[in-house]
């Protein structure tokens, strides 16, 4: 947003920016909480406030990030009740958390607009993507509801909603489709400030303020009613709701007068005498409109009706908008309402017609049928719309249909033509396949802006990501031409295809969407002469059959030579412009250079120079490939091996290959239950360099394995003779501990699963005495290793796993032999969280039950296509579920309640069956200690013996005991989540859970910021660090959650940092688990959002502790029983200044750069906080044990 503009200007932005632009201009207070895909709206507001940009009335708005959407709604409600123009931005679960306040706000006739990027609700699974489940779930709140179909509409309707809410006093929910509109970049005409001012009557703002609470004219609001008056009072609002449609239409008409864009409550387009009409809301309506126009042009009597104002639903306007000729109506709902007579919009349409017929306004009911489409951003394209129109022509159209999927279970799906293409030839369509890390998406966003800057050109960009945080694949869909682009669906027929990573050719059908004669740009490590023979056969076939022009460049090498690392974006963007002839080459190069300067600012000096050099070098290295006539390539091997489980081959494999849309309903689990261990089949091969083990230099300490975020370093010891069948390349060393004369030690690197972060190398203490650059593991080029390591891994997996009961759990060296039951996740390369997650899987995995809060750990832990949680060879392993973001502690406590109850029942049944099982065995089971691994192993043996005794029994009591027998072995409940959950949204539940004397273990993966949603400030964010919503540096210290828990007295509390002291971390996790009451472990987790090379993550953790910023301690209430001080401070006094730790991270450096004085000031305060907190811990550690409350926990 730039300075106030009073003349209409065009710009290019996504829906979030377009909505925020208006919402920011016409509000004073934003009470928000980040949630995908709406977060950028609030972030824009935060940024504009930081830049001092005022709203249209000259006021600088303020933004308040809250602890949850529930909190945001409460703050918003309070702000509205106190007279400020207040809004919020939200989606999905966030909107649901606002539900109670929405009823209140509407009930009190309080004007506000909630701007929503509509998103799926978590049901059988979470999804961050778009549909109308969330907005439909709040349709009974009394909010008016408006839906926008495009970026321009979302921009305009945001203002219409604001004008209408002030006039009607009815609060509005204004929504656009999450991702499809919120993240689509398109050209739009911006509303000037004058228009915004003209649309909003300032008398209405004053009226809003006058209704606010004020001691100057006191009132009581929010009262409690009795049966005598509640009902009548509820009906007082009816006229206000009834007035809304007319008010909204009037606002739309006013807007049309000001800017020329006319909207209607129900927008009809199509044949004036249409017999078939399809009705939809949101972006789907635009697809319907465009398709209907094409079919009408072909002579079909079809039309499209877009519902803009859904609540209140004006039957009168609705009927007036529909041609009287209509006989068949298809209603498309982007949600699912199980058990209803149909989805919500369908029900409204049916009811509207039923009323009309009943009233005599219509003589007959048309054939109205409804169906579902586009859940979770399932692409909705013209082929699907045509299928719906075709269905509408039938005498008995399928009611309750689905479109876009193959529902082979309930038979609801309509067949459709995937290739039906309505787009004008004049629109150029381009697809770019790349990686998240190579800058492809950023470059393409930039290309869209560049193209649309020309007054006569329009452009659209939409970007699809996979779910991995490391090595994510991206597909950019770009359209441009001389007509506005109204095509909110993916490109199926491309004039230009670029593949920015050669390896993707082996995995995805990249040229499937290429049109005949299209241009293909390939980044390949081969010359134009040599590349052909390296292309997979299906790629060659596409090229020959479609007569594609092919250009090749080794952009990766050019980028490396120029010092740009993996960022091939500028080079390939230049190639795209050079060979696509969209604009004159010189003009394009000048525009690219101008955009580089804009991106990096005027001080980007060397960065700009490097990128300029990349632009200049691109064309010199770009060559057209002469296409041979012969197919010489090989077919792609299957993505998952033939011997993989059936589900993995047919379902997981299809998703990995980008064919998930074709998976039929019958292939998917009915209740969201998935098999574990499927990441083992991904073999993503994203690392360029991987660790290589020097068996001779290694001291077998386990420090590399314990910090590996992706569990790719495994250790085993085994009898020497096992090596008889080992491949020659298999490396091993004698076990370097005493007492194992004939045993060997091997460290195996799973190179195809490695992300190449290098954190293991930095943590390796075994440095060569002759070469300081050589350690027992070094990073080396992966390519030459893959084949041999496959063989080595295959052999390694035949070696027996070390017997758990023989492993020394007390040190890192021992723990390396425990098999990780969490592996190869999609977490960021160098992630600071996953080493802890992996460690609990090693320590407690075979009896572990995890409640996982939504966030990074639920995404890398549970996002399809593949799952990192797995079972061991005995079939046992962690059982995992993610309930919500806000309720994770309660969810885990629920586990414990159920486990305790069923354990109690099992013990009772066991006693009842003592005569059959044997008193000794029953007594042994009931009295068994179950703390150490050997004790647990002994108990498992006893339970197995008990099972044997009951084998063959068919009586209920025995069967019931057998069903519950597993509860006789102590189960380990872990409640896992990030600081956003523990400190903010889930804090109340966490506190309550800790306040129960139940055996639950809480692991907080503390990154000190909302990592998953992109670095928003949490209450764990430290003083002086910047984060979103704390861009000028956080002014207050992070919450001392540990001390709050310690205050309970009976909660086990530990603060750990693996990089500072891995042995202490290990000890704390084991003590926490063994403690029979509630335990809380705060684990320092470095994060991409801290802004440094995560290869050095563990070293930075060590600095955090050395600075006294993250002291290590354990508060163990059981020590109180023996009179000891339960508080142990495990890290020494600060040895370095906080600044020595902090200024290695971008989150601190940015403030020092932008405002040195303030940074110095905050750093002084932060140092004082560190010093004082450390003193407090030291005082605590120095106390006599009697100064702590007694421990009453029974063992």
């Amino acid at each position, binding site marked *: 947003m730039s300075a106030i503009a009073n003349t209409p200007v065009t710009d290019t932005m996504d829906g979030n920016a377009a909505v925020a632009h208006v919402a920011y201009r016409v509000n004073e207070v934003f009470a928000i909480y980040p949630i*995908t*895909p709406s*977060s*950028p709206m609030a*972030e824009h507001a*935060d*940024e504009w406030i*930081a*830049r001092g940009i005022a709203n249209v009335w000259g006021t600088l708005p303020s933004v308040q990030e809250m602890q949850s959407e529930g909190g945001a709604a409460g703050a918003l409600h309070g702000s509205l009740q106190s007279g400020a123009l207040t809004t919020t931005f939200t989606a999905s679960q966030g909107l649901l958390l606002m539900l109670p306040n929405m009823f209140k706000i509407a009930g009190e006739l309080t004007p506000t607009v909630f701007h929503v990027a509509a998103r799926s609700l978590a049901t059988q699974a979470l999804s*961050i993507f778009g549909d109308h489940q969330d907005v439909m779930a709040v349709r009974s709140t009394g909010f008016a509801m408006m839906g926008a179909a495009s970026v321009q509409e979302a921009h305009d309707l945001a203002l219409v909603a604001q004008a209408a809410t002030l006039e009607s006093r009815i609060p509005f929910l204004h929504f656009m489709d999450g*991702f499809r509109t919120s*993240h689509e970049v398109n050209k739009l005409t911006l509303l000037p400030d004058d228009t915004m001012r003209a649309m909003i009557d300032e008398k209405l703002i004053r009226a809003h303020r006058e209704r606010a609470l004020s001691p100057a004219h006191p009132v009581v609001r929010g009262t409690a009613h009795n049966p005598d008056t509640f009902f009548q009072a509820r009906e007082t609002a009816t006229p206000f709701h009834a007035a809304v449609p007319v008010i909204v239409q009037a606002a739309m008409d006013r807007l049309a007068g000001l800017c020329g864009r006319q909207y209607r409550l129900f927008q009809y387009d199509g044949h004036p005498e249409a017999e078939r009409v399809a009705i939809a809301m949101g972006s789907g309506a635009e697809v319907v409109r465009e398709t209907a126009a094409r079919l009408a042009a072909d002579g079909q009597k079809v039309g499209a009706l877009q519902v803009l104002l859904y609540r209140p639903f004006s039957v009168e306007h609705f009927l007036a908008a529909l041609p009287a000729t209509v006989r068949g109506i298809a209603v498309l709902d982007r949600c699912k309402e199980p058990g209803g007579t149909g989805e919500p919009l369908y029900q409204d349409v049916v009811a509207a017609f039923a009323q009309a017929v009943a009233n005599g306004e219509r003589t007959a009911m048309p054939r109205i049928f409804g169906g579902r489409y586009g859940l979770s951003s399932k692409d909705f394209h013209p082929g699907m719309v045509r299928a719906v129109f075709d269905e509408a022509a039938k005498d008995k159209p399928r009611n309750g249909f689905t479109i876009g999927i193959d529902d082979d279970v309930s038979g609801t799906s309509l067949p459709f033509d995937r290739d039906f293409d309505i787009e004008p030839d004049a629109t150029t369509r381009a697809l770019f396949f790349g990686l*998240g*890390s190579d*800058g492809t*998406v*950023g470059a393409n*966003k930039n290309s869209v802006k560049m193209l649309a800057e020309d007054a006569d050109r329009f452009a659209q960009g939409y*970007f699809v*990501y996979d*779910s*991995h*945080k490391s090595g*994510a694949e*991206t597909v950019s869909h770009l359209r441009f031409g001389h007509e506005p682009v109204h095509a909110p669906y993916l490109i199926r027929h491309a004039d230009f295809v670029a593949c920015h990573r050669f390896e993707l050719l082996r995995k995805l059908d990249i040229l499937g969407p290429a049109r005949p004669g299209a241009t293909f740009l390939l980044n390949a490590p081969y010359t134009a002469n040599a590349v052909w023979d390296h292309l997979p056969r299906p790629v060659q076939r596409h090229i020959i059959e479609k007569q594609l022009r092919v250009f090749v460049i080794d952009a990766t090498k050019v980028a490396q030579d120029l010092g740009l690392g993996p*960022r091939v974006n500028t080079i390939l963007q230049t190639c795209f412009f050079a060979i696509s002839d969209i604009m004159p080459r010189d003009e394009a190069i000048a525009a690219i250079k101008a955009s580089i300067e804009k*991106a*990096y*600012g*005027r*001080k*980007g*000096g*060397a*960065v700009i*120079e490097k990128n300029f050099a990349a632009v200049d070098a691109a064309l010199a290295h770009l060559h057209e490939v002469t296409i041979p006539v012969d197919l010489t390539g090989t077919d792609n091997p299957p993505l998952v091996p033939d011997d993989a489980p059936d589900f993995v081959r047919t379902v997981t494999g299809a998703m990995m290959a980008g064919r998930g849309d074709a998976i039929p309903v019958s292939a998917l689990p009915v209740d969201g239950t998935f098999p574990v261990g499927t990441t083992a089949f991904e073999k993503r091969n994203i690392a360029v360099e991987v660790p290589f083990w020097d068996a001779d230099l290694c001291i077998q300490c386990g420090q590399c394995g314990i910090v590996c975020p992706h569990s790719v370093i495994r250790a085993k010891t085994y009898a020497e003779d096992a090596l008889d069948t080992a491949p020659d390349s298999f490396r091993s060393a004698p076990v370097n501990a005493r007492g194992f004369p004939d045993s060997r030690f091997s460290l195996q690197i799973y190179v195809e699963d490695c992300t190449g972060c290098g954190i293991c190398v930095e943590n390796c203490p075994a440095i060569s005495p002759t070469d300081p650059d050589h350690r027992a593991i070094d990073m080396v080029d992966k390519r030459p290793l893959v084949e041999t390591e496959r063989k080595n891994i295959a052999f390694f997996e035949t070696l027996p796993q070390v017997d758990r009961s023989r492993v020394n759990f007390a040190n890192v060296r021992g723990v390396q032999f425990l098999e990780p039951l969490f592996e190869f996740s999609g977490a960021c390369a160098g992630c600071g969280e996953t080493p802890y997650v992996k460690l609990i899987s090693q320590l407690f995995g075979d009896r572990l039950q995890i409640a996982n809060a939504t966030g990074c750990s639920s*995404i890398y832990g549970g996002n399809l296509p593949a799952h990192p949680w797995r079972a061991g060879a005995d079939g046992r392993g962690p059982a995992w579920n993610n309930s919500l973001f806000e309720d994770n502690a309660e969810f885990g406590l629920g586990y414990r309640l159920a486990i305790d109850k069923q354990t109690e029942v099992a013990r009772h049944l066991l006693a009842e069956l003592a005569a059959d099982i044997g008193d000794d065995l029953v007594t042994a089971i009931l009295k068994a200690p179950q703390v150490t691994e050997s004790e647990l192993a002994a108990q498992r043996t006893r339970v197995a013996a008990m099972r044997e005794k009951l084998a063959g029994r068919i009586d209920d009591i025995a069967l019931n005991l057998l069903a519950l027998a597993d509860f006789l072995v102590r189960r380990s409940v872990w409640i896992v989540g990030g600081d956003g959950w523990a400190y903010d949204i889930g804090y109340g539940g966490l506190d309550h859970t800790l306040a129960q004397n139940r055996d639950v273990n809480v692991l907080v993966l503390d990154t000190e910021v909302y*990592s*998953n*949603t*992109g*670095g928003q400030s949490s209450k764990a964010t430290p003083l002086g660090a*910047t*984060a*979103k919503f*704390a*861009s000028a540096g956080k002014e207050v210290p992070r919450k001392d959650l540990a001390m709050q828990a310690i205050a309970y007295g009976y909660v086990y509390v530990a603060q750990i940092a693996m990089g500072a002291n891995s042995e202490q971390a290990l000890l704390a996790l084991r003590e926490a688990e063994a403690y029979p009451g509630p335990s809380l472990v705060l684990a320092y987790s470095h994060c*991409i*959002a801290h*802004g440094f090379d995560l290869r050095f993550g563990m070293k930075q953790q060590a600095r955090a502790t050395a600075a006294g910023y993250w002291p290590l301690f354990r508060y163990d209430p059981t020590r109180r029983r023996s009179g000891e001080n339960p508080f142990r401070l495990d890290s020494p006094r600060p040895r370095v200044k906080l600044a020595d730790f902090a200024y290695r991270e*971008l*989150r601190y*450096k*940015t403030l020092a*750069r*932008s*405002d*040195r004085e303030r940074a110095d000031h905050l750093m002084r305060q932060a140092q004082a906080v560190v010093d004082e907190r450390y003193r407090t811990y030291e005082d605590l550690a120095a106390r006599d044990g009697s100064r702590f409350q007694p421990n009453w926990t029974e063992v």
Partner: protein
Amino acid sequence: MVDLATTWLGLPLAHPVVASASPLSRSLDGIRRLEDAGAAAIVLPSIYEEEIEAEDALTLALVEEGSWTQPEAAGYFPTADTETGGLEARLETIRRAREACAVPIVASLNGSAPAGWVSFAHEIEAAGASAIELNLYRVPANIDESGEAVERRWLETVSAVRAAVPIPLSVKLGPWLSSPGHFAGALVGAGADGLVLFNRFYQPDIDLATLTPKSDLELSSPYEIRQALLWISLLAGRLNTSLAATTGVESHVEVVKYLLAGADVTMTASALLRHGPDHIATLRDGLADWMAGRGFDSLAAMRGRLAADRLETTEPLLRAQYAEMLVGYGGEPR
């Protein structure tokens, strides 16, 4: 009334006492205080090669770190405002100092190898700096690199900055060279309009309590002037370049000595840190009093009186003096 006017780097100055780079000239307020206290020109704290490169890296990281890599986060940091802060704040200080002050404002760049940072000289010039002082500060710790190679790199750096900007360029160098005079000439050949003699390398001490290297700032003292005094004397009149003397200017005595040796200006930071900006007037007035007492009516009349080219012999400056001292220590007391 004596005439203290001098010319340095082609810039006319009211007198020869220049405030050299120190924390005092970090902020606009500090710069104005120095001017009010009477500084003839003000050198701002160095902008380091590493700072420029770090700023580039930071800009790159802020724009690119984790951006557009996953659907839930467009990036991980608050939107970078590349228009304010960091080096931009330093440039803004130059801009505002130029507007607020009448005396020349000299920006200092610190680097030792020609690279991308050199282009930052453009920014400094555009911000309005009267001149650039290029500080060739780098301990040549690489024992595989010859002195010749080090000097070649430094000369290339000077040439690169010279090529980048037309404003006067002064080069500050250290004394630890096999042939400082020859190298000084080469610097002038590479485009330096003036030389600043000498840089003080901050040499770390060892902290016996913590057994760690200790780097703290030792302010200079009058005892340290001799090296610069010697070389100014040897170069004045022989090289067609402006000479600035720095290090050890505590009182007017050192100012006088440097001027007699041939310096066009003297620079001080340590004395100002010890005594405050008003000490500039003490130095200036002390110089004027001394000159009046000795009958010099202008700086031109006294400057370079003891420069090598005006001495009958340079022996007293060089080896003979050294030999005499040795004899003095070992022989009979005289």
